[in-house]
């Protein structure tokens, strides 16, 4: 799980162009949206692409995405449960 969390942090920094943000600055349990990283609706869509591209998991219902992408931890939990 720890490895997956680290990997996810690196991936979202790269995919979402979070320049000048280091993995140690992202708390696994902290909300990704709203304050903090300032992610928006386009970032949410890119996270859906990330999940499919890197983990083979497809999210068809965007509403489901809200829970999955709450934090790095919830993303990791979801991947562990659903990965191919």
């Amino acid at each position, binding site marked *: 799980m720890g490895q997956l969390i680290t990997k996810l942090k690196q991936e979202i920094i790269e995919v*979402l*162009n*979070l*320049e000048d943000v280091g993995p140690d600055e992202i708390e696994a349990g902290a909300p990704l949206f709203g304050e903090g990283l*300032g992610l928006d609706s*386009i970032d949410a*869509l*890119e996270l859906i*692409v990330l999940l499919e*591209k890197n983990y083979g998991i497809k999210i068809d219902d965007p509403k489901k995405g809200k829970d999955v992408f709450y934090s790095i931890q919830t993303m990791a939990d979801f991947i562990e449960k659903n990965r191919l």
Partner: protein
Amino acid sequence: MEGCYISRSCSIIGTKVLVDGQTDFNTEQVVDFNTFIKSVYKHYKIGFLKFYKMDNLSKLAFLTSEILLMGSGLQQKYSPEDTGIVLINSSSTLETDNRYYLTIKDKSNYFPSPAVFVYTLPNIMVGEIAIRNKIMGENITFVAEKYDPQFLYEYVSLLMNEKIKRCICGWVEFERTGSCYESLIYLVEKDDITNRNIKFDASFLEKNYLDLKA
């Protein structure tokens, strides 16, 4: 029709940033655009993280506009609807179109990217400037083979006469292979705010552009 004045101009070309025709920043070294534009962003202490999500064309337009508007007190003097934005370019978003195409062309590795797709419209660079500065007035993006200062002058004058009180206008071009980029944006106002008596007219715009390219 009453004339307007140019309060300020900003240009980014090659390794330089020019303000009112004078070099304000020069990286000296020729580097790739990405490296160059980040150094400009850092030098001017822009502090706007969404910058990093923009495509190259929008980064170029956005930074030119940011530097243009430094110290001009935009939001204090005008209400959101009173400022317009008119930009022209030649390649539209072809460089970004190519990037987006790469995310769909290989059917075995097919992952269309929304973050890239959204930038495949040339008016997005106008949108970024509008959002940053809460500008809600007349806005438009034209595409032309070559920069036409006469047309820019005519259309902006028309808007200044009837619809808006200030205009951010000019030329922002990012060539499709990324080998060439240039921007030249003016802040045009009805009054001679800076007391430099630089009239907004086609011959000034033409000469200004020729000087830039020289």
